[in-house]
């Protein structure tokens, strides 16, 4: 009997509310940028901060308005953007070009509200160019991009941590200059603790999937992590995830799952796409194969132990540790924030293939996987494409592994026929492997 998550609607509303506020609030400071950034500094500017994030917005737009999204991407290409550029980027710029924006509550607003400022990060080669283009098209919105360097174990490399801290510190001065507001350390520090708390809580929720049956599947994980991505600095987001953690713990204690039939446990590397292509999710579900762990849903806005004496661990961090963190000064808070953000798994593999390989190895072992599914996204330059082909080489002899092309939101680049064929193969391989193991 499949379990139904109770807190579900609250999660959906949280995201819609944030976007509605950005679109319609009469007052407030509108901030745009990758929510794959340290967000708390924005909150130091006041309690009227309205945010629209790049990746989660593009992803949810594609989920809510598939046809519109196709038009957005085409509009961006007509406007001259590269045919091979990031499709999140193109969808977003396409909305700016068409000057209309659609959000998760199913509404489309004519007129894309200009942000007062852009606060973002730079990780892959086009990450901050995204907002340079948006800024240019909107007539020169002031923007500040933080260079996240990337590289495995970055949060434990003092020079990288210092570099990011210095940038955040300069960024705070810039925020004060560009908004003419005074920066409140009190609000900032509170936001930092919330931000870290949510990231740690999400890590704990994901880690519960180590149990058999795994309480959550990829589809539910995708539905449940937006608040953490959209705005993880609020008291409400902390409350949501505390409640969810309790609920999922209860599921584990009572042996329940949203998808109880788990003959095959799959570890997934790639940006979510099966929810957009139910036909493929079905191929897996029909044989009781479920994605129980994925670097995308776990690692985009969740933190884990990371590299401990040379080996990656997906063990979660203790939420109590967050409450004990000493955040008495602004610099303390910046330091804690920089470390947690640099620790995001989805950043480890950018410019450090070995970290990506370690994460996959650890995930396969810790989640007792029967198969490894690699789904590089054709227009993504981070952990959702880099190194995947090499990974297939490396893992194929160790565990049933298939790789097929997807794209985060550009359906034209998703290899649907091939993906279906290969998903069928994947199932046969896992069956053959199980038989082989039993025969031995």
């Amino acid at each position, binding site marked *: 009997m499949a379990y139904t998550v109770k807190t579900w609607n609250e999660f959906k509303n949280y995201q819609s509310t944030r976007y509605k506020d950005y679109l319609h609030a009469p007052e407030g400071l509108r901030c745009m940028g990758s929510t794959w950034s340290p967000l708390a500094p924005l909150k130091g500017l006041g309690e009227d901060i309205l945010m629209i994030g790049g990746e989660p917005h593009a992803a949810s737009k594609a989920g809510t308005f598939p046809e519109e999204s196709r038009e957005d991407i085409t509009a961006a290409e007509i406007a001259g953007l590269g045919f091979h550029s990031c499709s999140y980027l193109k969808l977003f710029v396409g909305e700016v070009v068409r000057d209309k924006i659609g959000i998760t509550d199913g509404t489309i607003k004519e007129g894309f509200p200009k942000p007062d400022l852009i606060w973002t990060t730079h990780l892959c080669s086009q990450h901050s160019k995204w907002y340079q283009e948006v800024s240019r098209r909107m007539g020169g919105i002031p923007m500040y991009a933080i260079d996240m360097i990337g590289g495995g174990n970055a949060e434990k490399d003092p020079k990288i941590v210092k570099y990011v801290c210095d940038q955040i510190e300069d960024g705070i001065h810039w925020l004060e200059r560009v908004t003419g507001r005074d920066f409140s350390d009190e609000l900032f520090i509170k936001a930092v603790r919330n931000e870290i708390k949510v990231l740690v809580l999400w890590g704990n929720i994901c880690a519960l999937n180590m149990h058999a049956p795994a309480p959550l599947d990829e589809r539910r994980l995708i539905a449940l992590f937006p608040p953490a991505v959209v705005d993880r600095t609020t008291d409400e987001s902390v409350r949501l995830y505390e409640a969810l953690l309790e609920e999922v713990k209860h599921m584990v204690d009572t042996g329940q799952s949203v998808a109880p039939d788990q003959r095959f446990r799959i570890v997934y590397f790639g940006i979510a796409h099966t929810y957009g292509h139910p036909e493929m999710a079905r191929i897996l579900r029909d044989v009781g194969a479920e994605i129980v762990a994925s670097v995308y849903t776990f690692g985009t806005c969740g933190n884990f132990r990371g590299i401990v004496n040379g080996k990656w661990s997906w063990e979660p961090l203790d939420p109590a540790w967050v409450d004990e963190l000493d955040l008495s000064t602004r610099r303390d808070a910046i330091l804690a924030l920089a470390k947690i953000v640099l620790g995001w798994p989805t950043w480890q593999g950018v410019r450090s293939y070995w970290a990506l390989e370690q994460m996959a190895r650890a995930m396969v072992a810790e989640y007792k996987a029967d198969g490894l599914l690699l789904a590089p996204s054709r227009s993504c330059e981070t952990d959702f494409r880099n190194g995947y082909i090499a990974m*297939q*080489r490396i893992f*194929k*002899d160790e565990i049933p592994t*298939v790789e*097929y*092309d997807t794209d985060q939101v550009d359906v034209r680049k998703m*290899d649907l026929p*091939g993906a279906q*064929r*290969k998903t*069928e*193969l994947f199932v*046969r*391989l896992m069956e*053959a492997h199980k038989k*082989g193991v039993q025969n031995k």
Partner: protein
Amino acid sequence: MNNGKHLAGLDAGHVNTKAVIMRGQEILGHSTVPTGFDVVGAAEAALNQALDNAGVSRGELAGIVATGIFRDMINVPPLNVNSTLPDYAADAKGALFLNKNSRTVIDIGGNIHKAVRYDQNGDLLDVIQNDKCADGLGIFYTTMAKALGVSEHELSELALQSTRKVSVAILCAVSAESEAIDLMCQGVNIADVADAIVRFMVERVAAMCTTLSLAQEIVVTGGLAKSKALIKHLPGLLKQDVSVSSLPEYAGAIGAVISYEGGK
């Protein structure tokens, strides 16, 4: 196996539908028909032609097994297919039948190519299929033969006569075609263009294969296995010997027959 019985194997592929008629180990007849939209009609036609070719009447058939990408579509009356099996499984069984010592089959078809490793029973051990940009190699081969104004066989013969190594972009059929035409427009010798076309294809296939640990012996099947020029390059790229099975395009259909009633 299935001692005296007359059995038919149908392999309904993206581009062609293949049929074989067998009795025991003996291949009595075979036939290929372009698939097109009327998948069932093509299967019917292929089956009947193969029966004629074998001198066997429909009534004498003890059973039909279907494989290929469209296998489920032809699993309908009037064909009364007894059972179906996936293409890669059929390729393995067929390749093993055609070469008892084979443990890997590289199948290069009209729209997709794949490599399958299997055990002494022809049971699946590992498999890999082409990436998206490498789709449609077989169709590309036909198109290029047309563009060069030669038959597919002649394209292969031309390539074998090439004396100068020229290159085309390797990514996909679209780029390769565009650059092959560009070479023609530069006045490059047509044989060298043909060789570049063939090298592009075999490089893509070989690259895919190296992801798999290939077990000897390696058999090449599928329509493109008939291109001598293409096969010529394969051992060098894989750094392994390969052999082309007899009736390479029928490996799948034969494999289907072999697996009749679980291959008993």
